[in-house]
């Protein structure tokens, strides 16, 4: 009976881990599909749109010092409503009508993994 219980617990834990990793890869995929065009696949702000004519420098997500100045709420605001909502360039589109809430939440977590920083709290 005890063995059966342990096996059941192990199965539940394994399935939770699988779901968690699927979600993580989902966020990375969302990032690479929508954001990497300008911010680059590794987040350095060097996507294929950034030619010498590009009017601004897309944010480098691997710059922890700069990324730490932003709270998660700041990032959500810019993702949803675009650059001008934070007095930044309109080259950053408003994604609020494109992405789901879950995708935006996933993106914010992914950006935190790129900068390896927690950001401004509160």
């Amino acid at each position, binding site marked *: 009976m005890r063995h059966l219980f342990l096996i059941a617990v192990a199965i539940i834990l394994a399935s939770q881990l699988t779901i968690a990793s699927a979600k993580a890869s989902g966020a990375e995929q*969302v990032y690479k599909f929508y954001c990497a065009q300008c911010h680059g696949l590794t987040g350095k702000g060097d*996507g294929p749109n950034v030619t010498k004519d590009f009017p601004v420098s897309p944010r480098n997500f691997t710059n922890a010092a700069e990324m730490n100045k932003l709270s998660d709420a700041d990032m959500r605001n810019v993702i949803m409503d675009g650059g001008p909502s934070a007095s930044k360039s309109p080259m*950053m589109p*408003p994604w609020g*009508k*494109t992405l789901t809430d879950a995708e935006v939440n996933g993106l914010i977590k992914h950006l935190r993994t790129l900068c390896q920083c927690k950001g401004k709290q509160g």
Partner: protein
Amino acid sequence: MRHLILATLSTVALFAATTMATMGAANASAGGDVFAAKGCADCHYTQGPAREKTIDDQLAKKGPELWYAGSKFQKDWLGKWLTDPKPIRPMKFGSLTVENPADHPKLSGGDVAAVTDFLMGLTSADVAAGKVKPKKNPKGRQIFSKKMPCSGCHQYVGRKKKIMGGRSGPSLVEAGVRLNPDWILAYLQKPKVFKPVKMMPVFVGLLSDKDMLNVSRYVANFKPKKKKK
């Protein structure tokens, strides 16, 4: 006598119209056969509605969907492009790292007209005809290059005929020769119908119908400048 001539002329005209329509349909049907035989369907699907539901679905495609090609493209341009396919996208379809290899197969001879007829027969009821008249449009220009980030991903001809703009989306240089102006508007207004999963943001709810009309007029006016005589 006059009635007889009119009746004869009407019959001839009707016969000619029916014959041309039949020939067109036959040519389109032949074009469908060429499309299949040449392997075009390996990269392009031609039966709507849109199938993509996830990013994986979109990334699995090797080329753009063509089920509404007849509503999207201009016939003259399509025939020329099939003969001499120059890249429309700077990057390889679906890639952010690989340049467009410019290796799209070419068609020649009677295949060109047949495939053009086939593709022009693939239309969407979601494209309303006669809505967009291409014209210089300062409001559209303002939205395209200042208010919204269109130029961030799409190339266009800027000042001093310089090609400007980003490289992840299809180029819009001479888009007015390639695209049906009414399709541009329909695509902005109903993105989920044509491309449910795409790298371009949805602008429904962000731009008004009037703004979308202005942008469509502006983009539809991207044409080569006429040479001064």
